[in-house]
């Protein structure tokens, strides 16, 4: 977070002890106007961090602040202008989307006339207007996910906390949500988004925070994260008929860390900072083998994430 940014969320030495597992100490902050991608393997502590932010649980030790307030003690004030969409959108199946948003509007103390005005617009924006009066229990998973985001956006929040918002959404919906979140940011909003879809985080977020085994192992810009964490890259080849001899030759290229044959082709691990695609292509062609395709197996961001989450935290 840039030093001049107003802090919306801050964690100082926060620990949550579950007995069987300890999350923390976590120290970080999120500034106004940021879109932060919260990354980490399952069980690393992402959802715990979110629940602590929202005052749904108390920290065992340390200090959590949301909009400068303790979200447990000053719950009502701290949660004003905050929208939250949970990882599993467990919404009330016996209500319709309209009824659910009415309830949320009342929780937010919005005037009845404004609730009535806001609901159709929001349902339209989120793409489920046609299902306004269908019981939530009868909606598809993707529609429930959309509704979950809609209820988070009710009442014009300035901070959105989204736990896996794109899960279950069809590709068109993903594009729609991406535009929606960008518009929200352009209007001065802030987003904290937990996701396992790296491409989403990369395309949307201005910065990332990686939590691994209950600790913050990185907090900053995506570009710097890639530079700091990317240890090795992997190139994938699709080849015509070839012999073991070619694999031996590929292994001998300086900078190649390893060559693995898989049912789908050949994976080659490269040293950090080395782009050997030209060398590799030349070696294959000189061997008289057909080179059907050559590409990086994963994006740099994916590779950086894999490197950063491999092994225990220091």
């Amino acid at each position, binding site marked *: 977070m840039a030093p001049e940014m107003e802090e919306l969320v801050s964690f100082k030495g926060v620990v949550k002890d579950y007995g069987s597992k300890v999350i923390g100490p976590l120290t970080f902050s999120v500034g106004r106007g940021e879109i932060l991608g919260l990354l980490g393997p399952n069980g690393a502590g992402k*959802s715990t961090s979110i*629940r602590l932010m*929202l005052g*749904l*649980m*108390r920290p065992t030790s340390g200090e959590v602040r949301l909009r400068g307030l303790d979200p447990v003690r000053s*719950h*009502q*004030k*701290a*949660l*004003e202008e*905050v929208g*939250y969409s*949970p990882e*599993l*959108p*467990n*919404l*009330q199946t*016996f*209500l319709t989307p309209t*009824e659910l948003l009415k*309830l*949320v509007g*009342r*929780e*937010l*103390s919005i005037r009845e006339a404004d609730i009535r005005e806001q609901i159709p617009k929001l349902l339209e924006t989120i793409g489920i207007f046609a299902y306004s009066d269908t019981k939530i229990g009868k909606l598809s998973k993707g529609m429930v996910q959309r509704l*979950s985001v809609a*209820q988070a956006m009710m009442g014009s929040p300035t901070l959105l906390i989204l736990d896996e918002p794109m899960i279950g959404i069809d590709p068109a919906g993903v594009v729609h949500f991406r535009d929606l979140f960008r518009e929200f940011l352009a209007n001065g909003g802030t987003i904290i988004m937990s996701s396992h879809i790296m491409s989403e985080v990369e395309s949307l977020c201005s910065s990332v925070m990686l939590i691994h085994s209950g600790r913050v192992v990185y907090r900053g810009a995506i570009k710097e994260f890639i530079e700091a964490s990317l240890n090795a890259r992997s190139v994938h080849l699709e080849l015509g008929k070839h012999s073991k001899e070619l694999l031996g030759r590929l292994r001998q290229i300086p900078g190649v860390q390893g060559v693995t044959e898989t049912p789908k082709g050949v994976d080659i691990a490269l040293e950090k900072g080395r782009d050997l695609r030209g060398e590799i292509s030349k070696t294959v062609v000189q061997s008289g083998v057909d080179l059907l395709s050559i590409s990086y197996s994963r994006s740099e961001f994916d590779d950086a994430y894999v490197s950063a989450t491999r092994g225990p935290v220091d």
Partner: protein
Amino acid sequence: MKLAKVWAFAIYEVRRAAARKKVLALVVLTILLDTVPYYLLRTSRLSLLPVSDYPYLWVAGVFILQGFFFPFIALLIAAGSMSEEYEQGTAEVLLSKPVSRDEFLLGKFLGGLLLMAVVILLNSVLSVSAATFAFGPQLSLQVLPTVVLAQVYSSLVFLSVAFLSGELIRRSSLSYVTASAVFLTSYIVGIYLRFIFQLTGDALYQSASNYLPSTPVSALPLLAGQPQLPTAALSLLQAVGVGSDEKSIVFSVVLIAGYAICALVIARTYFNRVDVSKKVT
């Protein structure tokens, strides 16, 4: 605390509880219990029942369910009130909004009470209607609002016990079983204590029975209605097994308030100090 938010949660709770099949089944059963007996009595051409009792037959339907059936409905409504929110993960969304936990807790409890009041009112309306339809105009109906009010107030005991159980245990089935065990134990121990009192004449057993949570639930509506009911109606009640040894309205009112307040204070304290549980998977 904002009353508008409390009311929003109360209405939500009525919708939530009414959507449950178990509660709906019990409401349907209430309707059957209030109508079928009158129909059977009418079609069997009563010879044992004096015609002078006909105008008071409504009392049987109004009072007969209060001691055993109403507490069960209260348990069903309230045991799932908090626990199902945790089980289904819906508490998380509701409590991530700018609402206080007190608003949520109070709203949920009042919603349960509201639904219970509707069931009790339905019972009275159906009993009077069925009795009128089967046996002609009914008398002494001016006492009905007092009785209904007393029944609603009495339901506070097992509503709050089950509500507490749901909050502490956070599993709907287990909290229902636990709260039912409290009710059944109280009910059965009460029968034993009164039986021992009749055998020994020792007033200690009667007093002990009067302090059980199930006792004022049965006693208060009867004590509230008794002064305005004629002897014929009271004899009818005795004949259908509705009676109580407790004689003091004030004692019953205070005891009900005591049980309800204790349970709600414990539930509130626990709810305010413990994390909101994640969905049970």
